């Protein structure tokens, strides 16, 4: 095995939703890995399959969703093959998760303190548990933690709730943290605080993290490697700096062009025409073809495979026209 330890290896994951009109594929042949101590970003629009991927990993999918193919290797065990009993030992203990809406995921009738202490070892005494819970709350930056231990979720502001969520997720010292849009519901200043907090915690605790977001800016600030998803597939995957400076997939490139900025003021903003495809009506070829400027007949009929860009193993893109985009990117500054 190489020096870098892979903590999670997702191979050819396929998740279907079994609806009345037949199954639709929400996640299609998604493969990626997360190394120890790094942050992996999944970017995409709504319906691109990024949250479903995250939930598939923890087997938190509700019916009618089901993982129908692939492997999710966590520390040399395939999570898809574990029994529900074994899965419970991993979920929340070894793999923690934080969600977008802290108000709907915190228990409203249980104090924040007892929710943090829930996942502590049974052998700990009450005093030990409380001391540890206060430490955790201080770690995530909740002021006057001792008093707040007995507060309820409704007594917290949005930012504080998200901090409490993070404290709960950290309580069991997970080696992998899954974060589903953790800052989307927050104000910019609070978002900035939470991003810094996550980054600091991750560095101090040597934790790995998968961050799901639709915000290119957030992803750029915190992720080491990024995968861009569209229509249930990974369209491009590369180290964060590489993907933002040299995007090789038209979708990634178009997304970055459509972000408003001062330099583009006065000129019309680039916009991707049309809407993302619906899962029950996927185009036959490349899912992005109907909205792509470079699309030709081949794109519309034949779905491209993920191929490496310039022979670099780290940078892969799913497009027939990688070469043309490399040419184009030389002339256009993102």
């Amino acid at each position: 095995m190489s020096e870098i330890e892979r903590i999670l290896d997702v191979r050819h994951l396929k998740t279907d939703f079994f609806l009345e009109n037949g199954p639709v594929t929400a996640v299609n042949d998604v493969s990626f890995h997360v190394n120890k101590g790094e942050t992996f970003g999944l970017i995409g629009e709504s319906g691109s399959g990024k949250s479903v991927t995250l939930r598939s990993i923890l087997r938190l999918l509700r019916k009618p969703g089901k993982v129908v193919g692939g492997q999710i290797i966590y520390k040399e065990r395939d999570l898809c093959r574990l029994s529900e009993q074994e899965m419970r030992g991993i979920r929340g203990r070894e793999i923690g998760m934080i969600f977008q809406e802290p108000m709907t995921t915190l228990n409203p009738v249980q104090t924040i303190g007892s929710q943090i202490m829930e996942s502590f070892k049974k052998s700990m005494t009450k005093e030990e548990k409380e001391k540890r819970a206060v430490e955790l709350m201080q770690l995530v930056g909740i002021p006057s933690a001792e008093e707040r231990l007995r507060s309820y979720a409704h007594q917290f502001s949005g930012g504080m709730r998200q901090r409490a969520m993070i404290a709960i997720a950290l309580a069991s010292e997970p080696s992998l943290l899954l974060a589903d849009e953790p800052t989307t519901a927050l104000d910019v200043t609070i978002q900035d605080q939470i991003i810094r907090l996550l980054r600091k915690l991750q560095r101090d605790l040597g934790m790995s993290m998968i961050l799901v977001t639709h915000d290119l800016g957030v992803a750029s600030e915190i992720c080491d490697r990024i995968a861009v998803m569209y229509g249930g597939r990974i369209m491009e995957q590369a180290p964060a700096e590489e993907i933002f400076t040299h995007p090789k997939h038209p979708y990634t490139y178009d997304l970055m062009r459509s972000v408003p900025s001062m330099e583009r003021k006065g000129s019309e903003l680039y916009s991707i025409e049309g809407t993302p495809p619906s899962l029950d009506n996927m185009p036959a070829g490349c899912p992005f073809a109907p909205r792509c400027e470079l699309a030709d007949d081949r794109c519309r009929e034949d779905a491209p495979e993920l191929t490496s860009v310039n022979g670099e193993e780290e940078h892969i893109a799913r497009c027939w026209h990688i070469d043309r985009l490399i040419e184009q990117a030389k002339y256009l500054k993102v």
Partner: protein
Amino acid sequence: MADETVLDVRHLSKTFPVSRNIGQVIRREPQQYVRAVEDVSFTIHRGETLGLVGESGCGKSTLSRTIMRLYKPDEGMILFSDYGNLALAQGRQLRKARQRIQMVFQDPYSSLNPKMTVRQMFYEEMSVHHLCTRSEFENRAKEIMSLVGMPADALDRYPSAFSGGQRQRLCIARALIMKPELLIADEPVSALDMSIQAQIINLLDRLRRDMNLTMIFISHGLRVVQYISDHVMVMYLGRIVEMGTTQEIFEHPAHPYTRILTLAAPEIGASHLDEDKPVIRGETPSPIQLPSGCPFHPRCPWAQDICRSVDPELRESPSGHAVRCHYPLAKDVEFVAKDPLDKPLPQN
């Protein structure tokens, strides 16, 4: 005329009483108030876009609703186009003025009636105000649909048939069919997917140019505001903390809050956090009990002693860049106290 003023808001204040429980009433505890909007003054000229920025709870939505007179202001004047002072307007005058101020809301899923076709929705609005006959309506509706980039046959469909971006186009069409003089867009792109946001921003920008529309654009997304606005107003706890042209606000922010807001917005390609940039501490204090002195001082990295005791006035530079801070960060600009009575009232 280029400099025609469409909206002139002066010293507008709006407070809401905090509900008391029965015990508090019996104990005769004093009634407390939330100062949602406090002493806000600004003007917008025809064809301009004013960007309104601030965190949640800073009063930006209350301000826009008070301008539409969905709330009755406690103090101040709202001078709107030829319709006089809306703060005192009633009955017919208010109805006439409200036709000319239209709003687009954040969530296009909850702001369209699911049981009405697009045509019914448009017609209801037009007929309530007796704006046109049935035959005129058809042409107007088709015209407005093509203006927002929707096919004419969409008129007979229900909102459920459309995606988020298309719904927002319909919301914009519904606002524009009234030929408004002022369009208030309250977070119009925040709920949309990123590839759709650019489409809607472009649409609003194009409509504004083609129709010479005046717009108040409310958003917490600074990049969007920067792109679309001519002037920007930053609010904190119900008050204006800084106001100026887009360039002044984003390139030479004078108020610490503005500066921190511009820095806090995550940037693409920044590749990992800049650990040295100033960070805002804590959260917005409760608007019921404001901190002493400058309301921003508990979170301000540059706060001095005077900030804790003395509340700064809004001061203005010769170019109109206004800031409410004892120590504005734009060092080379001189800010002087604003004379509150420097503008004569329009004659009518």
